[in-house]
């Protein structure tokens, strides 16, 4: 610690309590006095406080009469001088930072599937908003695989699925989401999907009702009417329009309008050539043969029956179905008698079932 002596009163003390004025050192009372006199005489009266640069400002280390080097404008002992110019990062801080970065890396790797699911969801959302529902489906289905509990993703997928007639996809997504429970049932997206879902379910209920009706003789017309209603109610399911035509076949058959029956089956065969449409056309041609006796119809019916057999040869279900209707059509061709499937079963299959 450095000491100084006042040029005015002779007081000796730490240099920090003295001031320099006019190249002389004074204590506080004396410097006030001489500065005041200088002001009266019109001389400069400024004075500056002296610093004790032998004491470290940070740790208070005393260097005796020798000044410590200044860092900036303050004296520091060598240890503190090094510290203030190059303050070290604590080891725990560096360790924590490294740990945090490692954890972030783990989270990013672990979260890769979430990034993909999220990215798919945003792409799907954009496509849904642009009206490209079918294109949105695969993106949103991938999202649901990772996040079946996400309201947003499930509602987007259900909306896209219902607007493209994919009721099964929507049903699976909704049921997979907390058994069909949603957090916010007041939001616009939920209400839209709910309305779509109710429309689809109502249409499918009508189809189910029609399927039961058509099994009973004399209700084909009513059944066809129900399916047409369903197709109009839920036009997004394009299969319903085709189903309605199939029910129209039954109604025409029941009304004995075999020309109408043939026209529908012919159109369906042209549009969707398959074992089923070939069989339906064979049935209509057999009816025409039965009522007209025109051999051309018989030949055509037999040819269509062959096609039905050939097209369904690799499918066990279609093979079984072929066996059922082929016997009835052949009976019609042989006897020229037109009877309903239930009547045919009553006459020729009741015993078979009992024997089985």
């Amino acid at each position, binding site marked *: 610690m450095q000491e100084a002596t006042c040029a005015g009163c002779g007081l000796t003390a730490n240099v920090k309590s003295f001031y320099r004025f006019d190249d002389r050192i004074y204590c506080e009372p004396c410097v006030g006095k001489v500065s005041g006199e200088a002001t009266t005489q019109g001389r400069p009266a400024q004075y500056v406080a002296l610093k004790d640069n032998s004491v470290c400002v*940070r740790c208070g280390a005393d260097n005796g009469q020798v000044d410590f080097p200044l*860092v*900036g404008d*303050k004296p520091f002992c060598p240890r503190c001088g090094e*510290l*203030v*110019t*190059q*303050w070290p*990062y*604590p080891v725990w*801080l560096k360790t*924590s*930072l490294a740990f*945090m970065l490692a*954890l*972030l890396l*783990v*989270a*990013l790797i*672990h*979260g890769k599937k*979430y*990034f993909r*699911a*999220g*990215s798919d*969801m*945003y*792409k799907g*959302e*954009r496509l849904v908003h642009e009206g490209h529902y079918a294109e949105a489906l695969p993106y949103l289905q991938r*999202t649901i695989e*990772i*996040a079946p*509990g*996400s*309201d*947003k*993703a499930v509602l987007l997928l259900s909306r896209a699925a219902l607007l493209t007639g994919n009721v099964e996809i929507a049903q699976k997504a909704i049921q997979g989401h907390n058994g069909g429970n949603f957090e916010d049932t007041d939001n616009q997206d939920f209400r839209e999907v709910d309305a779509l879902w109710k429309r689809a379910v109502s249409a499918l209920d009508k189809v189910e009702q029609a399927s039961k009706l058509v099994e009973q003789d004399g209700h084909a017309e009513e059944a066809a009417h129900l399916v047409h209603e369903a197709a109009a109610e839920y036009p997004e399911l394009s299969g319903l329009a085709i189903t309605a035509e199939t029910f129209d076949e039954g109604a025409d058959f029941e009304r004995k309008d075999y020309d109408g029956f043939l026209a529908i089956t012919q159109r369906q065969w042209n549009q969707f050539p398959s074992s089923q449409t070939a069989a339906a056309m064979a049935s209509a041609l057999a009816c025409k043969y039965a009522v007209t006796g025109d051999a051309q119809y018989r030949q055509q019916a037999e040819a269509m029956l062959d096609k039905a057999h050939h097209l369904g040869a690799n499918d066990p279900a279609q093979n079984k179905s072929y066996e059922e209707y082929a016997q009835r059509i052949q009976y019609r061709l042989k006897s020229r008698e037109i009877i309903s499937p239930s009547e045919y079963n009553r006459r020729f299959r009741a015993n078979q079932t009992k024997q089985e």
Partner: protein
Amino acid sequence: MFFIPGPVIAALTFPGVIVHEAGHLFFCRLFKLQVYDVCFFRFGNPAGYVIHGKTNQFLPLFFVSMGPFFANTLLCMVFCTAAFLPVWELKVSDPLAYFFYWLGLSIGMHAFPSTADLSNMWELAPQRAKQGNVLAIISLPLVGILYLLNFARMFWADLGYGIAVGILGPIALFRLLALA
């Protein structure tokens, strides 16, 4: 609105305090300013501090004062982005994701520079702005806004900022990625 004592908030969000002070220290070292004392966290007001030497240069002053604001904001966005999708959008119960959300929000909450930092900037910025210092010109409105936000801390502006950065940031990022 409800009152929670500052030390309790600081304790619950201590990583943000540490990151903020580490940011000050980093920029002090980068611009070779003397550091007289550092406290990364304590139960008191302020919860952390870095006492450093003064400078008349605007660039070091800007980064030492504002650096933690940018660093905390960036880290908040990074950590919250890692957790945003499972927590907010996909509703997947992933403990690691919740941990990262807490970490991100804690860091984001302590992004605002202190009024002392802002005062230092405010002392020098107008003078340097008059001399045509672009950074000083830009920083003037920023310092003004941050002053206001600092006062709005009593209305949870700091938490609001963390949430905004931690949610709006990732939303913007993922929407951009979806467009790509």
